[in-house]
Each structure stands twice: as C-alpha cells, then as structure tokens.
C-alpha cells in the first residue's frame, strides 16, 4: 500500500478538523440557504470521521496488503503480514479502534440518554396538561416565561408556555407553531446528532463545538424558512421576527444601555435575515455547494477503497 494514501487521508482529516469548519462557520452564504449549508456540514462531519479513522487504518494495516480491502481481508482470514509489523502500525490501529469506539459509543450514549429524557418529558406533559381537541399534539404549559419547544420522537409533542401565549398575538403564535412544526417535519434533531457526538468525543477540538453551534443556528434558520412558506398574512417575515424578539426579550424590564453591542449572536442573526432578507443563493452556487459536499464525502471513500497503484 502506498503510504501516500494514508498521507492524503491525514491531510484531508487535518483540513476537516480545523480550516474547513472555521471557514464554513465564518462565511455569510449559509444564512442565504440554510439547507444547503446543513448538507455541507453533514459532509464535513462524516468525511472528517472517515478520513481520520481511515488514515490510521490504512497506515496500521499497511503490512498486510496493498489496499484497505485487501489488507482487511488478509487480517480477517488470519493470514500473516507480508511485511514486518512495527510499533507505529500497532499504535495507529489502536488509535483507530479507540476513536471509532469512542465516536460510536458517544453517539449511542447520547441517543439513549436523550431518548430517556424525552420520554420523561412526554410522560410529564401528558399527565400535567390536558390536550386540547383542536391540536392533539400540542400542550399548553402553565408558566410565565415565554417558551416554545418541541419534543421529537415517534409521538412528537409541541409545547407552548402560557407566558408565550400571553405575549403574542394570534399571527405571531401561528408563526411560532409553524416554526416548531417545521423542526418536527424535517427531523432536525437528527441533523444535530453527529455534531453532538463529535463535541462529546473530542472536546479538545475547537472546531467540534463551533460546528455544533453553527448547525444549531442553521437548523433554526431553516425552520424559520419553512414556517414562512406556510404562513399567510400581509408580512409573515415581520410577524415571525416580532415573535422572536418578544420571546427573546421576555425577561424584559430595565434595559441598561452603553454596553457593547453583541451583534454576533444567533438570535440577532435570525432576526436580521428575517427583516432584511439576503438574496437567495443562485442555482449555480447551490449546485456547486452540493457538489462540493458530495466530493468531500467521495474523496475519503475512494481513497479507502481504491487499490493502491
């Protein structure tokens, strides 16, 4: 096997561990098309995992054969290595195993823990709140704070607090409900899952936390877009923006001024793109981004499966 394959995968892994997520987190175009950006993030997350584990495997298995399928088959069928197996080969294999187990373990663990918490929340809500016949999947929780959220799952629930209902007019409330239904309809919790795993498995990697935050933000923007498509009224963008501002400022009260403006926050970004919508991404740019995402996934796959020359 050519060490070049392992080197290429390692370079790809390094790019995906820092410069690529940093760039994708900094550029402005994702907010013009959150869905395409979400696809790109998924590709970065998957290709990153594939290339780092792949690089370690390719290097570690090099003594057994000239390509990963060949070497893997040789190991599985118990043939002995053609070349001497050195310490660094064992080291790479161990690291590959640890990383794989950690990533998949964290994924399974957070899945299980989340499922348990959601079940408890659902039980609680179904017991505490009488469902209204008009909206059987929605619950109104008695609480002064203006809060809306949804609990994904086989029987999803949409929850509004009485504080939220009190603060918003009917159109704004409809916008909030449409936003939450968009999350549920598009299963946005699944988009977040790989990044939860990355962040938990490699807390030292700053890109992991960054990627997670970016994906959370994009999921909200995507839900805003989906909600707008279903809303009537004279100015749905403004209605939704108002709902966001009311819900965000719910604590309200005295507002000290003179502090530094923090325009970078996710909520501000959402409101800005609602009231001053950026032009949608041109079809060519969309296609290019999707193509890049596809190539990003294809590159490590090909490097892993291709027999070395």
């Amino acid at each position, binding site marked *: 096997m050519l060490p070049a394959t392992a080197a290429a995968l390692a370079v790809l892994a390094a790019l995906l561990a820092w410069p690529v997520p940093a760039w994708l987190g900094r550029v402005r175009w994702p907010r013009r098309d959150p869905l395409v950006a979400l696809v790109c993030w998924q590709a970065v997350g998957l290709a990153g995992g594939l290339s780092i584990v792949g690089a370690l495997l390719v290097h570690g298995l090099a003594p057994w054969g000239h390509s990963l399928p060949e070497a893997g088959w040789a190991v599985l069928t118990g043939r002995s290595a053609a070349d001497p197996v050195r310490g660094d080969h064992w080291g790479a294999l161990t690291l590959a195993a640890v990383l794989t187990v950690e990533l998949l373990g964290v994924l399974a663990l*957070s899945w299980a*823990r*989340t499922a348990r*918490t*959601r079940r408890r*929340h659902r*039980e*609680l809500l*179904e*017991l*505490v709140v*009488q469902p209204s016949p008009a909206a059987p999947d929605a619950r109104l*929780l*008695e*609480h002064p*704070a203006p*809060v*809306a*959220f*949804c*609990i*994904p799952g086989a029987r999803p629930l949409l929850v509004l607090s009485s504080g939220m209902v009190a603060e918003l007019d009917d159109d704004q409330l409809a916008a*909030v409900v449409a936003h*939450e239904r968009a*999350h549920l309809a598009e299963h*946005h*919790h699944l988009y*977040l899952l790989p990044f*939860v795993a990355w962040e938990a498995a490699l807390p030292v990697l700053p890109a992991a936390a960054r990627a997670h935050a970016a994906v*959370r933000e994009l*999921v*909200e923007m995507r*839900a805003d877009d989906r909600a707008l498509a279903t809303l009537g009224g004279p100015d749905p963008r*403004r209605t939704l*923006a*108002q*709902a*966001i*501002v009311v819900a*965000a*400022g719910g*604590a*309200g*009260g*005295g*507002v*000290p*001024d003179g*502090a*530094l*403006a*923090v*325009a970078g*926050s*996710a*909520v*501000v970004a959402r*409101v*800005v793109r609602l*009231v001053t919508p950026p032009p949608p991404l041109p079809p060519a740019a969309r296609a290019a981004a999707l193509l890049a995402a596809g190539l990003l996934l294809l590159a490590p796959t090909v490097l892993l499966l291709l027999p070395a020359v």
Partner: protein
Amino acid sequence: MASLGDLERTVMDRLWAADGPVAAAGLRDALAERGLALTTVHTVLSRLEAKGFVEHDDARPRRFRPTATREQHAAELMHEVLGRSGDRQAVLARFVGGVDPEEARLLRQLLEETAPDAR
C-alpha cells in the same frame, strides 16, 4: 373506552384535587361515573408510581398521594428546558434562546428601523 394515558391523567387530577392521601377504593368511588374496577385503579396507580408521580404510605389499605404538585412538575420541566440543568439535546430547539438585555434592545431597535413606513 378511555385510554390508559387518559385514565392516568384523571387519577392524577383526583389526587391533586384531594386534601390528603387517598386509598384506591376512594379513587374508584370518586370516579364512579367511569365505572372502573378496583384492579384497574390499582393498575393505573402502580403505573403512576413506577413513573414517579405517585407514592403510597404504609396504612392499610395503602393510601396514595402525588409526589409533587402540578405546578412543581411544570416548573421542573421548564427548568430543564431553559437550559439550567439536564440534557439540552432532549428538547430540540427552544423557539428562542435567552438573550442579554443589550441584545434585546438591539433587536427591538432593529424591528423599529425596519418597520414599514407607510402609516
């Protein structure tokens, strides 16, 4: 035919409304209009107990009471949702996270500046 979830809610409502602990027979009598068998009431109660919503004392017959008020349950849930404890993955997407006062001011200003002028 009422679902089990529906029955659980009804029983909890009764327990919350009661002044003190209630025995299963008392619950059956209070829900007489539903014509429940005593075994059904016991099934519902043990399910509620397994979920941690109900506890019983050592009297004979055993008497049941809620572990927390309706408001306490709501407050606990909100506490987790508002992100001060627990698992923030479990709740997807609170509609809006909290913002600090300065951001809130910025947001209101933004809305005013972009308000349609035609009025």
